């Protein structure tokens, strides 16, 4: 909790002939995060070389490439498939040898035929495009060619052409440009060309065809449609192949991928002629599992030990260690940045506070219920681990907004049959339909400010812990005290404000006895805190002083919890007022045919309005809640940039031993 998983640095040394079993064992356990061996840095690794792949590496890679080609051709993706039955590896191996070449040939033939037909279709379409301009000219396409004494011109012109030489001309008027065919004596060719140029002539090549244009086009169109039929048939065949072999293909892919990863693992080890050394990380509590498994697999011919961890220089991979209810929030952490190994992991705080903020903003039983139903509905359709996490986060958020909806007494902008238990957000829209005394804005604002103050205080305390853990020597004390200084300034300002004005939900210090010059004792305490705080900040880094106004802006930023929430309440109430107050209710008193239309319109406004408002509410509630964490909370203590723990191995979905 609040800390990433503890890691141990593992050193594995064995003779080269044990490489196969060791790699297989490590892969099976899926716990060992390999530190890649890089020849350049080689401190203490003189004489070592990067290892070579195990036997059979190129065969399995080739097979994998083939499988992927087939998968592409018939559009099969492992992510889209639900594992039905797991295929045993030995059986799969035999099947790959026997069935894969046949399947490959079958798919290859089909795709080659398809691509040939595709090119044929393109050729025919090209021919049709060439003939198209000549459609309106009632001349056989044969007659355009083969003259020695005449020249034939065909092309587009902008206006009519007038010629001074003897000629024969066909002119067809088009919408944008006109098509013209001119036949003239060959010896007067240049004059014709000049005349045509004046009419902005664009030449069109004369197609190598015979017969009338329209029948030719019909003939080619007929050919195209028969070819498209053939292509559709091939596609159907490919779909049949997919239905039949999809399971086998994804299982093959997974099997070969595990093989490739295993055979190529030695590329990440340091080796000599006879031995190899692998370094990496395992979760500390799993060390015994891994080391026992390795010893068993090699019959004791292996040396496994834990190396000391140097937190300053080692880049330790980070794996979250959170209780199960907080795990979905890890996705929100990864969007920002994974924590460093030495840092506090705020996932737990995020997982609790994010839904609360969301609920405070959306706070409506109706929207909450709809969102909850939507989450469960989407879960059936959407696959993938990240999506599942996102939906879990949304689910928690929607439950929270139902709870806050009950407290606020809100249902789609209407009041529930009780008075708001928390501060009222009922606006007076449509003649105060919701009843009550209107919204308790000052109280709501103060609540938001309090949330901000507490959230930021927590952030600063985390900052103190982080600095005391990560920094060293003189800087450590200074950095911790600077964080304390920020807290002192914030609370100092707060105390001074309390002595100036009395506010709801805040302690009233204005009545304390005055000490001197109309300033009371609390104001002096506040002032001293402020000054001491500024000094502490400046001692760590004088430049930070310019950041002092952010104390106020960050606290005030939490006002968005109220503001965004109120705006969604306002939209909901306006929708209700337009739909029910203005369109439906007046018509219900005296029902006419037009009145029914109005009622239908009212229902439509109601549905569309609330759907839009819910979309806005999810966006607003989600984005603003997460932003308050990323910007206001994390900037106080969190750096991130940790390396993801990525163990050597794979979660198998389609295969088993």
């Amino acid at each position, binding site marked *: 909790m609040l800390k990433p998983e503890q890691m141990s640095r593992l050193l594995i040394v064995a003779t080269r002939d044990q490489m196969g079993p060791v790699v297989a064992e490590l892969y099976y356990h899926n716990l060992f995060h390999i530190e890649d061996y890089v020849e350049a840095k080689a401190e203490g690794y003189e004489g070592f070389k990067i290892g070579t792949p195990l036997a059979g590496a190129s065969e399995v890679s080739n097979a994998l490439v083939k499988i992927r080609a087939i998968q592409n051709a018939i559009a099969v993706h492992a992510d889209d498939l639900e594992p039905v039955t797991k295929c045993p590896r030995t059986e799969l191996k035999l099947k790959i040898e026997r069935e894969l070449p046949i399947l490959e040939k079958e798919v290859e033939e089909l795709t080659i035929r398809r691509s040939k037909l595709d090119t044929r279709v393109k050729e025919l379409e090209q021919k049709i495009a060439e003939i198209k301009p000549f459609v309106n000219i009632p001349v056989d396409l044969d007659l355009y060619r083969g003259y020695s004494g005449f020249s034939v011109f065909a092309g587009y012109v902008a206006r009519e052409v007038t010629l001074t030489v003897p000629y024969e001309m066909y002119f067809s008027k088009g919408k944008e440009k006109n098509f013209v065919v001119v036949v003239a004596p060959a010896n007067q060719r240049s004059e014709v060309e000049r005349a045509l140029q004046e009419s902005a002539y664009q030449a069109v090549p004369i197609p190598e065809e015979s017969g009338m244009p329209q029948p030719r086009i019909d003939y080619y169109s007929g050919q195209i449609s028969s070819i498209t039929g053939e292509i559709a048939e091939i596609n159907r065949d490919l779909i049949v192949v997919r239905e039949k072999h999809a399971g086998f293909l994804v299982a093959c892919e997974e099997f070969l991928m595990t093989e490739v990863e295993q055979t190529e693992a030695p590329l990440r080890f340091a080796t000599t002629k006879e031995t190899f050394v692998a370094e990496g990380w395992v979760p500390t509590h799993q060390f015994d599992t891994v080391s026992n498994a390795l010893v068993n697999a090699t019959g004791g011919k292996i040396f496994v030990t834990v190396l000391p961890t140097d937190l300053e220089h080692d880049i330790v991979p980070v794996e979250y260690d959170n209780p199960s209810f907080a795990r979905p929030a890890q996705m929100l952490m990864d969007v*920002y940045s994974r924590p460093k190994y030495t840092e506090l992991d705020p996932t737990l705080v995020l997982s609790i506070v994010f839904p609360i903020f969301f609920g405070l903003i959306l706070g409506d039983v109706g929207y909450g219920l709809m969102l909850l139903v939507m989450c469960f509905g989407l879960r059936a359709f959407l696959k993938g681990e990240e999506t599942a996490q996102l939906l879990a986060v949304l689910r928690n958020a929607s439950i929270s907004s139902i709870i806050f909806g009950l407290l606020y007494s809100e249902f789609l902008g209407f009041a529930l049959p009780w008075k708001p238990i928390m501060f009222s957000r009922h606006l007076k829209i449509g003649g105060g339909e919701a009843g009550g005394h209107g919204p308790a*804005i*000052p109280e709501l604002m103060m609540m938001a400010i309090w949330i901000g103050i507490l959230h930021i205080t927590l952030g600063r305390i985390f900052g103190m812990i982080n600095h005391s853990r990560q920094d060293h020597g003189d800087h450590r004390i200074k950095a911790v005290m600077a964080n304390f200084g920020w807290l002192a300034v914030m609370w100092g300002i707060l105390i001074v404000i309390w002595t100036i004005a009395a506010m709801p939900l805040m302690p009233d210090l204005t009545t304390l006895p005055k000490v001197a010059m109309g300033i009371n004792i609390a104001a002096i305490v506040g002032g001293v805190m402020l000054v001491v705080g500024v000094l502490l900040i400046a001692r760590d880094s004088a430049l930070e002083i310019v950041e002092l106004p952010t104390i106020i*802006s960050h606290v*005030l930023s939490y*006002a968005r919890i109220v503001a965004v929430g109120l705006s969604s309440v306002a939209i909901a109430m306006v929708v209700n007022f337009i739909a029910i107050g203005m369109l439906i209710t007046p018509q219900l008193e005296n029902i006419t045919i037009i009145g029914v239309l109005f009622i239908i319109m009212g229902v439509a406004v109601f549905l569309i309005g609330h759907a839009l408002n819910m979309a806005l509410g999810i966006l607003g509630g989600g984005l603003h809640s997460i*932003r308050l964490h*990323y*910007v206001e909370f994390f900037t106080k203590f969190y750096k*991130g940039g940790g390396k993801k723990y990525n163990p050597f191995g794979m979660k198998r979905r389609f295969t088993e031993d």
Partner: protein
Amino acid sequence: MTLEMVQASQAGMKALGAGLAVGLTGIGAGVAEMAIGSAAVGATAENKDVFGLVLLLTVIPETIVIFGLVVGLLLLF
């Protein structure tokens, strides 16, 4: 001009002022965020890791509109 009229016009002015405070600061924040946002999207497209940082940079001008909102609420209530 009666006292009621003066009070009513004062209330109206307050509402106008609150509206201006939120609206104008909103425009200001929008203009400021425009350039930062587009640069941020570009940077994220090139390197996903900077998302956290560019988000921070993008929302810095939002402070303006928050201040506008606070002023607006103070005027009204």
